[in-house]
C-alpha cells in the first residue's frame, strides 16, 4: 500500500491519497494518470490490469486500487 501511495503522490503531490476518495468523480486523476498508473503497476507490482478492470470504481481511492492489485495478484 505504501508503494502505491508513493506512486500516486508522485503524480499529484498536493493530494493526501491515504484519505482521498472520489479521485475520479472529483477529477483528480485524468486519463493520462490512469495510463501511467496501469503501466507502473505492471512494472512495480508485476500485475497486469485488464481493460475490464480499468473502471472508475477501481481508481476512486488508493484503497480501491490496492484491493484490485491484491485481487489480481492472487488470481
Amino acid at each position, binding site marked *: 500500500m505504501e508503494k502505491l501511495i508513493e506512486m500516486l503522490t508522485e503524480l499529484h503531490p498536493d493530494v493526501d491519497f491515504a484519505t482521498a476518495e472520489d479521485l*475520479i*468523480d472529483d*477529477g483528480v*486523476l*485524468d*486519463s*493520462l*494518470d*490512469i*495510463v*501511467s*498508473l*496501469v*503501466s*507502473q503497476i505492471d512494472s512495480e507490482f508485476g500485475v497486469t490490469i*485488464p*481493460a*475490464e478492470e*480499468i*473502471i*472508475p470504481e477501481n*481508481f476512486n481511492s488508493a484503497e480501491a486500487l490496492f484491493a484490485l492489485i491484491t485481487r489480481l495478484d492472487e488470481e
Partner: protein
Amino acid sequence: MQKNILEYLEKTAERLPEKIAFSTGKESMSFSEVQGQARSVGTRLAASGLSGESVVIFMDKHPRTVTAFWGVIYAGCFYVCLDEKMPRARIDSILENLRPRAVIADKKNFATASSLGLEHTFLYDDICGTECDRAALADIRRRQCDTDPIYVVFTSGSTGVPKGVVACHRSVIDYTESLTQALGFDENTVFANQTPLYFDAPLKELMPTLKLGATTYFVPRMLFSFPVRLVEYLDTYKINTVCWVVSALVQISSLGALEAHTPKYLTKVAFGSEVFPRKQYDLWRAALPNAEFYNLYGPTEATGMSCYWKADRELSEDEPIPVGTPFDNTDIILLDSDNKRAELGAEGEICIRGTCVTMGYYNNPERTDEAFVQNPLVSAYRELIYRTGDIGRYNAHGELVFVCSKDNQIKHMGHRIELGEIESAAERGEGVGRAVCVYNADSKEIVLFYVGETEDKQLLGALTCALPRYMLPARLVKMTALPLTDNGKINRTYLKSLAANEN
C-alpha cells in the same frame, strides 16, 4: 444563397423540431429547444447593446453551451469559448487580446466569470427564457454579410501568446458543405464528440448536426480514461460516427479494450491532427473491418480540416497514412523554398487557398501578415493563401502526404532529418506503444520519448537496424505515459522542455 450558418438551424428546426440535436446522454435538447433558446439569448444580448463584437462563453460542455454559441450569432456577434480547465494566465492573455464586454456563464462557472470584471456577466439560465424579439433579430440578419465573423478560436502561439483565429459564416458554410459531402454524413448520423468546444475541431460534429438534423452526444471527459466504459457509452447511444484526435482512439486500442469490446454501431471513424501510429491504426481496422476510416488534415487557420483520405486501399508496412485530397472548393499548393510550385513528388510547404482561408488572427496584424500572404504564383490580382508551416509531398497515387511540420524538420550533423521518420521507425519496434522525437538545438541532441514494454537497449538495437547512424537518438527516455495537450494531442512543447532540462 445561404449566407448565415443559422439558416441550417432554422431549416432543421422546422423539419425535425422534436428530434434530439445535442445531448450529454443524461440531458438533451431538441432542435426546436436549441433554436428557441438561441433566439432568446440573441434577443437579450442585442437588447443590451451588444453588436458586431466578441461575446465570451464560459460554460462546461453541454447542449446549452452550443446553444449559447448560436445565440451570440443571432445577436450579430461572434463567440469565444473559455473553459474552467484553462490556466488563468491563458484566460487573461486571451481577454487582453480580445477586450470583450460580455460573458455568458453557466451556474458552475458564474463566480469565475464574474471575477473577470466585464461590463456584462450573464447567467445562461437567466437569459435563455427571454421573450424573442423577432423584429429585432430579423433586422440584425438583414444587415449581416456572410463575411461577418462567427467565432474566434485561440491556438497556442509558439511565442506563448495565444493567437485568435477569426472565421466567418462563408468559410464555415463552405467547410460544412464539403465535409458533409466528402465523409457522407446524413440525418441518421450519430456523433460522439470528444474535442473541447473552445477549438474549431467540434465544428465537424456541430455543423453537420445543424445542417442535416443529425445528433451529437458530448461524451463526458472522464470516460476517455476508461476504455471499456467509453465503448459502452458508444453502444448505449448507438454512436455510428466519431471524429476524434488520434490519442483518444489510441487510448482505447492500446489498453487492449478493442478485442473484447468492439463498438457495435460504429461505421465511420475519422481521425486527425496527429499521425496515427500504424500498429494502433491496424488494430482499429482489424476490429472494425466494415467501418470507413478517414484521415483528416488541416489547420484552424483554414477553418478546421482541409484534406481527407479514405482508407480504401491497404498501405505497405512503412507507408505513412496519406492525408489525401483537398475538400471540394479548397486547393493545396506545395511551395518550395524559392516560393515556386514544388516539382511533382518533391517536398514543399503546404499552402491552402479557397473560401476556407480564415480572416487572420484577432488584433494581431503582424502574425497575420506572416502566415496569410499573397499567393506567390499570382501577381496580377490579390489572392491570400495560408502558409501552414507543414511540409508535404505527393505520393505515386497522387495523394498528398504530410511529411512533418517545419519545426520537426531539423538539420543535424549536416543532414536534414525528419523527426517523424525516427518516430515511425521506433513504433514499428517490438513492444513499443508510441514514440515521440524532439530535437534539443542547444545540445544538438535527438531525444526519443516512448511508452511500451520494451527497454532502451532493445529499442536502440531495432533503430540501429532501421535508420542511418546520424538519425539515431542520442538518448532514449522511457515514460509510463506521454503528456497530452488540452486537445488530447501529444504535448511536444512539454517534451522539448523535458529534453532541455535533463541535460
